[in-house]
């Protein structure tokens, strides 16, 4: 009974983590950017969906779409206002661009967070779920919303896999992650590929944010923890490796659910952090990372 409960809840959480971390690792793999405003973009999507549905009464579907659109806009803003100027800057030495991108996106994330807090307060918000009601699976009462979340996450990840491996644009993205110079020599514009990747990232982060808002609820305080969890999942799986992140998301998701059910919800994040430190010591490049 309890085992099934852990199995089901853990699956939904893990799928959500996987979706959130996929976009993050994709950007790192292709353009070497660690986007520390990730949590803020997810929260922006969730709060936009909540505001659209609860304040402006546009309905749950339209609300969810608005949430994803806001995340897309925020992702482009991050790229064009913060990341690209730093990458193109001639005043910043190349070997320091990484730390500047980290600092810049971190500050940008705080700005988004503060704007959200200013207009919509710090209170926790739960987005109205698209599907309501409860079903019984293997004797566990499960909200339909939880099943919906898991299905959407898996579908989106499958679509992403098709996009990257089966379309021309996707193959260009894949090639850029392997050898950026080679791609330029083949006559493809690297900037265009980056724009595509940031668009994919925006949509993924938006969907993950809106689902998170329906499933667990968000507030502007969730920004930091969300960024930290995406960061640790991605490092655990190996920076830039999408399949590694998927595995890591399930490991972390189940570890947290197990701890929450069997020990105490207060200790939820501790085992995952310990595992992370352990993996960093014995295998610094992560589970499936290449160096």
């Amino acid at each position: 009974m309890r085992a099934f409960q852990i199995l089901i809840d853990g699956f939904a959480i893990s799928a959500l983590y996987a979706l959130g971390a996929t976009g993050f690792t994709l950007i790192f793999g292709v353009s070497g950017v660690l986007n520390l405003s990730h949590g803020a973009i997810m929260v922006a999507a969730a709060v936009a969906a909540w505001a659209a549905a609860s304040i402006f009464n546009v309905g749950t579907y339209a609300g969810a779409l608005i949430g994803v659109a806001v995340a897309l806009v925020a992702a482009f803003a991050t790229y064009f206002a913060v990341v690209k100027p730093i990458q193109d800057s001639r005043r910043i030495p190349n070997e320091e661009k990484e730390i500047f991108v980290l600092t810049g996106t971190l500050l940008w994330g705080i700005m988004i967070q503060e704007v959200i807090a200013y207009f919509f307060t710090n209170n926790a918000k739960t987005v109205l779920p698209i599907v309501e009601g409860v079903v019984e699976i293997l004797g566990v009462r499960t909200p339909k919303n939880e099943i919906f979340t898991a299905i959407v996450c898996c579908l989106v990840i499958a679509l992403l896999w098709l996009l990257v491996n089966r379309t021309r644009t996707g193959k260009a993205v894949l090639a850029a992650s392997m050898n950026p110079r080679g791609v330029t020599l083949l006559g493809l514009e690297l900037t265009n590929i980056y724009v595509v990747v940031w668009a994919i990232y925006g949509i993924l982060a938006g969907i993950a944010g809106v689902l998170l808002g329906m499933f667990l609820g968000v507030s502007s305080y969730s920004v930091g923890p969300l960024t930290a969890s995406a960061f640790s999942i991605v490092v655990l799986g190996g920076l830039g490796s999408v399949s590694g992140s998927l595995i890591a998301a399930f490991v972390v998701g189940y570890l947290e659910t197990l701890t929450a059910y069997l020990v105490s919800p207060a200790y939820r994040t501790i085992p995952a952090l310990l595992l992370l430190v352990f993996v960093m010591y014995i295998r610094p490049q992560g589970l499936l990372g290449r160096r």
Partner: protein
Amino acid sequence: MSSFFTSRLFFISLALVVIAATLPLYVSGYVLGLLTVAFYFGVFAMSWDLLFGFAGEVNFGPTFLIGVGAYTAGILNAQFGWSVYPCIVLGALASVIAGLVLALPALRVRGPYFGLTTLVAVLMLQNFIVVFADLTGGEIGLTIPDVITINAGANYWIALGFMTISAAILYGLSQSPIGLVLQASGQDPVQAGALGFNIVKHKLAAFIVSAFFSGLSGALLVFYFGTASVGTVVDVAVGVNVIVSAVLGGRRTVLGAALGAIFLIVAGEFLRPTGELATFIVSAVALLVVLFFPGGFLGAALSREARS
């Protein structure tokens, strides 16, 4: 080193310290209190700059070192009744041990991986403080019975003197041969090693020095506040402020980091009437500095001087 004592930077710093030392004679206790906190923060930022600017280690967890020092001093005083000065010394020592623990992964992993390890260290410390609430006061914080002194002017002078001495030592270190080796090993570890320098030894030294000053400053700050809480000395947001200060003031300048910290704290106070927007404005200004003056305040000033 000898040229420093005749340089313009030295005279400007000396003048600033002298002016700052006379402030208690004519400004209110409120301003002094604000600057006292800003000076302790300045030491946090300078210690971070030594580690990042020179050793090239992206430390996302300055508050791990600060928090260990602050909480060790606070717990020894509040739970075991030790007197103030042994607590401060032991706080600094605990922080040095924490710095050694943090340095272990730094010698194995680099770049973003090390950044994450330090971030995780902060999150773990935060979790443990909440879990061992009996000892640490948990989320509410720990009330500390003793203070160094209640005189606002004396507190201010202690903070100013502490910052000046720390600045002198950290700046001297950064300009010494050790600082140059650190800078070389941060930029190209392989080549620095090939030139015969022991990178591991130098990096460990940088961690120990950085941890010592962070912990000492954290312990002093706790006895100034009369309380130790996650929100003031451990939270990731505090660490972000330390990093922003150092980047704002100018990396690799050490002294700039202190300027950045003072600016950040004073600006935050001036913007208090704007309410919740204060953090937004400070972050926006910091972002603009990062984008348009990547050398920071002191970096921009120094490069202008070099050009003219």
